[in-house]
């Protein structure tokens, strides 16, 4: 399983790095435009804008994740991986771990960048505000996994009656509803929100894995 993930990361590393470059590039462009022609001239305010850089890295990682899942599907990677002597459970986990690993790399880079920016601003680099980065990363990971889960539910729907696919659909809808509640609702405390969101993302990944190993057709 780890070999599959490692090989995937090696293959998609340029995609991730280019996405980060584009993300940071766009942010730098916006900050520059604001600094030059905007009303914000104060240096501290500009640095505050710069604090959005980890967000740019995280969003770029999610975009890379979408590119990876789309490419894997388009190039029918399942077909190749299923022909290898690797247990199906490991193939299934590797499929969801690959985009998650990209998010994890983005999260690591985001934390590093955030610490540097906080230091530049004169704040302690290890402030509790890092939890906000975790919360955002967990949300993006969740939304990155949603299409993969939907894909498995569509596969399930192809082989069972609509009632048979109902529990999986219900789980997905429940997970999304809970996610919205965590994002907008009564859950207070960034640490709690980040934890709950990460748990929902893991639940979704587990659902995807469970559906994949029960498939009866691996040609697509």
């Amino acid at each position, binding site marked *: 399983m780890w*070999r599959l993930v490692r*090989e995937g990361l090696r*293959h998609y590393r340029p995609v991730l790095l280019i996405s980060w470059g584009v993300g940071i590039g766009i942010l730098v462009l916006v900050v520059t435009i604001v600094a030059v022609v905007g009303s914000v001239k104060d240096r501290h305010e500009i640095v505050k804008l710069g604090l959005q850089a980890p967000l740019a890295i995280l969003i770029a990682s999610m975009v890379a994740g979408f590119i990876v899942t789309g490419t894997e599907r388009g*190039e*029918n*990677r*399942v*077909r*190749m*991986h*299923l*022909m*290898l*002597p*690797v*247990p*199906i*459970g490991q193939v299934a986990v590797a499929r969801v771990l690959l985009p998650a690993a990209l998010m994890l790399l983005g999260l690591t880079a985001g934390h590093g960048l955030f610490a540097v920016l906080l230091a530049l601003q004169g704040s302690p680099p290890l402030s509790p505000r890092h939890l906000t980065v975790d919360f955002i990363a967990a949300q993006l990971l969740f939304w990155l996994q949603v299409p993969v889960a939907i894909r498995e539910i569509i596969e399930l729907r192809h082989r069972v009656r609509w009632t048979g696919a109902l529990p999986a659909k219900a789980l997905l809808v429940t997970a999304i509803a809970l996610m919205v509640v965590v994002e907008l609702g009564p859950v207070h405390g960034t640490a709690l929100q980040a934890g709950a969101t990460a748990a929902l993302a893991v639940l979704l990944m587990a659902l995807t894995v469970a559906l994949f*190993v029960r*498939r*009866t*057709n*691996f*040609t697509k």
Partner: protein
Amino acid sequence: MSGVPAFTLTGVVKRYPGFTLGPLDLALQPGTVLGFVGPNGSGKTTTLNCIAGLVIPEEGSVEVFGRKTDHRAPAWKTNIGVVGETHGFYHSRTARENLRFLSRFLPGWSDRRVDRLATRFGLPLDKKVEQLSKGQVAKLALVAALGHGPRLLLLDEPTSGLDPVVRAEVLDVLWEVLEDGEHAIFYSTHVLSDISRLADELVFLHEGRVLQRSSKDALTERWRRISFRLADADVAVASAVEYRRVRAEHQVLSDDGDATLAHLRALGADAIEQSRMTIDEIAVAILKGGNHVAPR
């Protein structure tokens, strides 16, 4: 030669909306090439996918060299090489990188074997897969399938998109694979000229069911095209699969030439002429009807 079949399908059934494959009982002995012949949509690819584990049948069981094709215990996959409609290669990686990827997972992988095959096919290993032609991708798929020296090769239209010269090269390579008598090839196609040289046995599939399984030699020996003259307007001829009459001359396709000739002599037919049929012609006759026809 090992006594364990290369694969065994027992009572395999796979249902799709508007199509059912099986029940299918099929086995292949090592050292044998089985040509799996049928028109488009007859279930050839589904059968191959069932053996490869890419499609799980609703009923029945599939074994490869005596092991159930269970994805949770995938050791059986080291014994098979598959060339299918799609391959799952990394398009933005070179052919060599794709092969290297496979080599990290497949025990028995031989870079020497791969290099030899690639050279023989003229396959540019340093080109990205997305830059390869359709024929080159087909060659890469075959090299990838043979890289770990599998004992069972599952081929689904492997020469599709190849020019005649490379087609012949592919068949030569497959001949070599068979040399030690331990390997088996399951060759699914609707182009019979591909396997007429290679196949030991032919299975004819139509609408998900096996119409006939026979050795290639027995087919070419039995099937005849026979013409004769007979005063009777219409006549029921033994073993005639197809019957046509042009004025006084009658023509039949027979799936048992000897029986038909004996019957015609008994009827008093004259000007009897017979010729052997090619595997292509026999396949068309079998797949067109399969059943004996009544004279018109």
